[in-house]
């Protein structure tokens, strides 16, 4: 916890409090246990002995209600995309999305297919993209560390529940 206490006119305390809260939040990122394709195998491996994701306090939760982070691991078809949106809406605020692998980023190998969604960011807001086909476990770990950085920058007490890349802004920006 590198304390960056910003002394402004009235929210010195809020800043440090935000730091503590963000530190708690980043220390236990629980991710949703679901994989859409072969990237899920790497996702399992990330929980294994070499890159032990549990070291930074990340465990899987099988229900979206208790998860903070959604790792979209693999190809997203249109049929699955509707389910992913449903799962995203079922997650409790504050929630983050990590798009893992080329298929989830932009359609990847199956970009010209009739049934594959060209990037999961067409339907849900994505915080971190991890490239690779599939990404190595270290890459996924790096992505989760990036999510931690995003968390540390947020002002939780001031505007929790509202985020810049909310799903509404995605749909209505045109």
């Amino acid at each position, binding site marked *: 916890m590198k304390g960056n206490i910003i002394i402004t006119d009235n929210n010195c305390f809020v800043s440090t409090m935000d730091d503590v809260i963000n530190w708690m939040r980043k220390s236990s990122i629980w991710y949703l246990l679901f994989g859409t394709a072969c990237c899920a195998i790497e996702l399992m491996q990330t929980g294994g002995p070499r890159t032990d994701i549990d070291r930074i306090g990340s465990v899987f939760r099988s229900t979206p209600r208790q998860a903070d982070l959604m790792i979209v691991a693999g190809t997203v078809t*249109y*049929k699955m*995309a*509707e389910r992913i949106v449903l799962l995203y809406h079922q997650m409790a605020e504050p929630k983050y999305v990590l798009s893992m692998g080329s298929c989830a980023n*932009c*359609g990847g190998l199956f*970009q010209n297919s*009739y*049934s594959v*969604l*060209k*990037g999961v960011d*067409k*339907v849900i807001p994505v915080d971190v993209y991890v490239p690779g086909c599939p990404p190595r476990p270290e890459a996924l770990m790096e992505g989760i560390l990036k999510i931690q950085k995003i968390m540390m920058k947020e002002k939780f007490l001031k505007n929790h529940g509202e985020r810049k890349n909310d799903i509404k802004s995605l*749909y209505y920006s*045109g």
Partner: protein
Amino acid sequence: MISKVYTILVDRFGEDALLYFDDTLNPYIQVNPEQIQMLCIFMRYNPALKFSFFFSLCGVDYPEKNQITMVYHLFSMKQKKMCVLKTSVSRKNPELESIESVWKAAGWFERELYDLLGVNFTNHSNMKRLLLPDDWVGHPLRKDYEEPSFYHDMETSRNRIS
């Protein structure tokens, strides 16, 4: 090999219904589409043939010939032999008799073909889409299929349509 099967089949169904091609890598028998169910029942239960295992069923779209060709791969556990049947239906109104009553597994392949190529199998127990969503428009493995730009408010291309 397969010519033996062909002779047995010709004995039963006559010369007109069946054509034998062995100039390809995998010799096949071209079948009249009206007779496909009878032929399959015969091949399944005839003690000399006993094609008990249904390998696969796939469809090929030929827009220039204006027809869709079904390819049946059958395997006989008794003779350790594979047999390929082909039959063609018109592209406008593709309809074929279902062989789900002969091999139960064929029902799934037929649903897939209906899904992707739009071949309508009569007498099938559950002729619905298998892989794609139920409200999908068109049959994507047809050569003239055009992808719509939106599916359920989801853009279907990476380029942003503004």
